[in-house]
């Protein structure tokens, strides 16, 4: 599960409250996050927050703060808008057919009039790393490139050329490199060498150019130095090249939904037109919500609590799922859920049900659960008795099972004991002397066993675990059983240590 580092003080400012660590841990627990680690970096306290593997919207500070604020009812769900500009005015990327050989897809968008500060800029870079590690599977499926739009000019082309034909100054360098030279150059680069394998065997490398043949990037390896962004950048051009289009769209949506809050026109994103090699035109990003109609019973029924439509709607809203009652006819009440582009993890009604349950509060569901246990079980005494019998047997003793009833002598004279008349349970009508009393000790049974087994090879090692009966005024009948164990060793010498 990914762990996202956020500055604690910045986090609490964003949430509008100075939490104690325990209070914050409780908040995380209730929402489904975990405070994994607390560290200090340059006098700043950093919280490492563990988030679900499929929540790309929680991979950065902005996403975590936004989700928690909405969860606590401090904010409404943002309405993300792709600004309405005519197609002709949109920036364009034209895809050349050779890209199909190595990395077929590209999606793109623009964040206009954005204002970064040091913290949000760092967050912007960190989110790209997080996404690269997670959904992008180490850049193999998707690679993100972000550029200073003011340094480049559209229309752009997404091409794939032989490495020797690509030449540019890569990020952090001053001299120009050919594509093949770059592969060699980065072989020793700790960060980049693990991405080389993605394209190095290909006859053509992917590359993005602007109208002046400035190289924006050599995906998935490195961007060009020319279009590098900085905290001062005002207009960001984002391109995601990919081998999996669905994931590229999710990545692009995540980037813009998280950072469009810093644009002058908050939550507004400028579209880019991508023209594929066969002439088909696509406009990105697609921020339209995914609409699901879910019967109310499917939501509450899966969780096992009752709630009416209004309750469900207000709870779902706290989880960034915009919901409203369906106006369609029929007896069954349905909820129409608008899943925002931040929630690509919602696939089916069960995902909606879970969010409802989280907002409802797991502890509140638990409170409705009965505390009495059902099902089979054993008495502790039986359990422990059986375990002890096993241990005896494993130590080399054999089990015997003898009578509860015995003669009066068996528990007195035969054991050199005197009867104090307050211990043994006596039978008033014994058929013979064998049934005079109930045993008060296991000794008679063991000794009689030895007597009857005198022919048996020595040593005789036997044990019995069972009840004896004793008079007892604490019980309603005046007598009770008591569970005893006894063992006996018999040989031609006393053998104290057996």
């Amino acid at each position: 599960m990914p762990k996202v580092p956020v500055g604690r003080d910045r986090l609490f400012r964003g949430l509008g409250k100075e939490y104690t660590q325990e209070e914050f841990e409780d908040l995380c627990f209730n929402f489904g996050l975990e405070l994994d680690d607390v560290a200090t970096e340059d006098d700043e306290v950093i919280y490492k927050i563990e988030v679900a593997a499929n929540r790309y919207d929680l991979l950065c500070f902005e996403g975590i703060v936004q989700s928690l604020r909405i969860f606590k009812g401090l904010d409404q769900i943002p309405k993300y808008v792709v600004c309405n500009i005519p197609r002709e005015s949109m920036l364009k990327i034209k895809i050349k057919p050779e890209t199909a050989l190595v990395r077929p897809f590209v999606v793109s968008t623009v964040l206009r009039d954005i204002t970064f500060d040091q913290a949000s800029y760092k967050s912007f870079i960190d989110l790209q790393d997080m996404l690269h590690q997670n959904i992008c599977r180490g850049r193999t499926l998707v690679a993100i490139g972000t550029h200073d739009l003011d340094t480049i000019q559209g229309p752009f082309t997404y091409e794939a050329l032989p490495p020797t034909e690509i030449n540019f100054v890569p990020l952090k360098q001053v001299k120009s490199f050919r594509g093949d030279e770059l592969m060699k150059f980065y072989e020793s680069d700790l960060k980049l060498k693990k991405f080389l394998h993605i394209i190095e065997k290909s006859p053509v490398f992917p590359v993005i150019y602007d109208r002046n043949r400035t190289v924006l990037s050599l995906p998935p390896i490195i961007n060009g130095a020319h279009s590098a962004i900085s905290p001062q950048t005002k207009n960001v051009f984002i391109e995601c090249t990919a081998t999996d289009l669905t994931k590229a769209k999710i990545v692009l949506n995540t980037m813009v939904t998280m950072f469009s809050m810093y644009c002058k026109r908050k939550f507004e994103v400028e579209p880019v037109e991508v023209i594929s090699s066969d002439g088909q035109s696509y406009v990105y990003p697609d921020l339209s919500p995914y609409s699901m109609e879910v019967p109310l019973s499917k939501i509450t029924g899966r969780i096992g609590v009752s709630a009416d439509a209004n309750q469900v709607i207000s709870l779902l809203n706290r989880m960034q799922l915009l919901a409203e009652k369906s106006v369609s006819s029929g007896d069954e009440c349905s909820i129409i859920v608008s899943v925002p582009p931040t929630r690509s993890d919602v696939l089916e009604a069960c995902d909606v049900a879970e969010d409802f349950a989280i907002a409802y509060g797991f502890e509140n569901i638990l409170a409705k659960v009965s505390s009495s246990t059902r099902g089979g079980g054993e008495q502790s005494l039986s359990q422990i008795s059986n375990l002890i019998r096993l241990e005896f047997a494993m130590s080399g003793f054999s089990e015997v099972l003898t009578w509860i009833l015995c003669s009066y002598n068996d528990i007195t004279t035969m054991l050199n004991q005197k009867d104090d008349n307050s211990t043994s349970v006596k039978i008033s009508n014994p058929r013979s002397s064998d049934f005079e009393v109930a045993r008060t000790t296991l000794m008679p049974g063991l000794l009689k066993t030895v007597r009857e087994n005198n022919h048996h090879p020595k040593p005789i090692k036997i044990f019995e675990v069972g009840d004896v009966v004793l008079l007892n005024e604490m019980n309603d009948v005046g007598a009770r059983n008591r569970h005893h164990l006894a063992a006996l060793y018999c040989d031609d010498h006393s053998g104290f240590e057996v």
Partner: protein
Amino acid sequence: MAEKAILEQLQSNEEISNSGDFATSTGFDHEEIKNITRSLHGFQLVDAQEIKKEIWELTNEGKLYAEIGSPEFQLFSAVPPEGGISRQELQQKFDPLVYKIGCQAAVKNKWLEMGRQQVLRKIQTVEDSVKDLLLQIKDGQVISSEDINSLKRRKLIELKTWNGYSIRKGPNFSLERKKLVSVFTREHLLSGEWKNLEFKKYNFDANALPPSGGHLHPLLKVRERIRNIFIAMGFKEMQTNNYVESSFWNFDALFQPQQHPARDSHDTFFLKAPSTTLSLPESYLDKVKQVHESGGYGSKGYQYEWKREEAEKNVFRTHTTAVTARVLYSLAQQRPFTPQRYFSIDRVFRNEAVDRTHLAEFHQIEGVICDRGLTLADLMQVLQDFFKKMGMSNLKFKATCNPYTEPSMEIYSYHEGLKKWVEIGNSGMFRPEMLRPMGFPEDVTAIAWGLSLERPTMILYGIDNIRDLFGPKVDLKLIKRNPICKLGM
């Protein structure tokens, strides 16, 4: 004999003040007297006090001179009173060492004159004072420290420690020592001797030999307990005896997407041989492929290209949930649908780094209930029942994420000893995308939970390194000495 002598002596006298003197007077060997004294003292028939003395004793050389005279005296005696003797002749009469020492001493004492040819007496008679001194020492007499030093220098005497005892009657004194019997035998009984015998007291504090016999492994004792809990709750044991599993059953059938961190995060062992599964249920596979790629049953699906080759890859199963998938698929084929409860406790394999709490192999406990209309509240209920039987009754649930369940919950229990909430397991409701392709109707739900066997065992038995519990490095002492498993009693 010596013992009798000591005891008789003490009978009529207060004490034997010096065991050495006693030995000499009675003619017994002092060592023997000392040994017997110690034994009698041990049984408290006598009370012996140790005496330590430092005395001078004759060396072997000293003993020789005490007998035949010192070298110088011998030499002197060999020189005739009149006329003397030639050196050669004198020398021939003696051992070279005796001659050498004798000449030195005789000259020093001014007894002899050693001419170049002749040796002459300087005085008429002499006394062999060395011999006398040696005899005195042998006799135990005290001599001056000057003489001591000169004899010591000539290595004729040495300082020895002398040990002995002064002996008095002890609390158990009697003229004859009673023998204590430690082992009571048949012969004692038959002969009637037992009436006159005194028995050695049993020492209940002594360590005994452990009884020989077998022992069971603590991990499997806990496993047995947990099996019993499941069976008592009406769960049927799943057949889990297949460690090799295909990715299809281990991942895909569970709606775990290919090419996703969730699949790697298990850190799986992929197989070289057999590298791919020989067969898969084809019509079911088509449904699984479809639900991954484009959804269905009300789901969006993952919208990616599902590859058959990925599903065919064999692994060592990373969880017993793979078996659950097989079992549920089998259940789904039965008409009409019958609700069932299943459990399993068996080995799973993870390609993780081995450390104090992680191994490449461990045991997973899994419980599953499949019925119509199950809810999250039902899951909480059954978890409460189950964990209460394990002795954990204060539970808390936290939302988490599993690819194949939604909702999913981590289960926490309050540990009284550690005074904190501890994660004890994971649970969830299987997704429709998993159940529907198997053929279950829409209203059939399945809830499940899992935990490791090792963790509760380590907590129960106070073991903090998993390799001390499981594997060949486990100390056999642990196997032989671990207590019975009282989980939940």
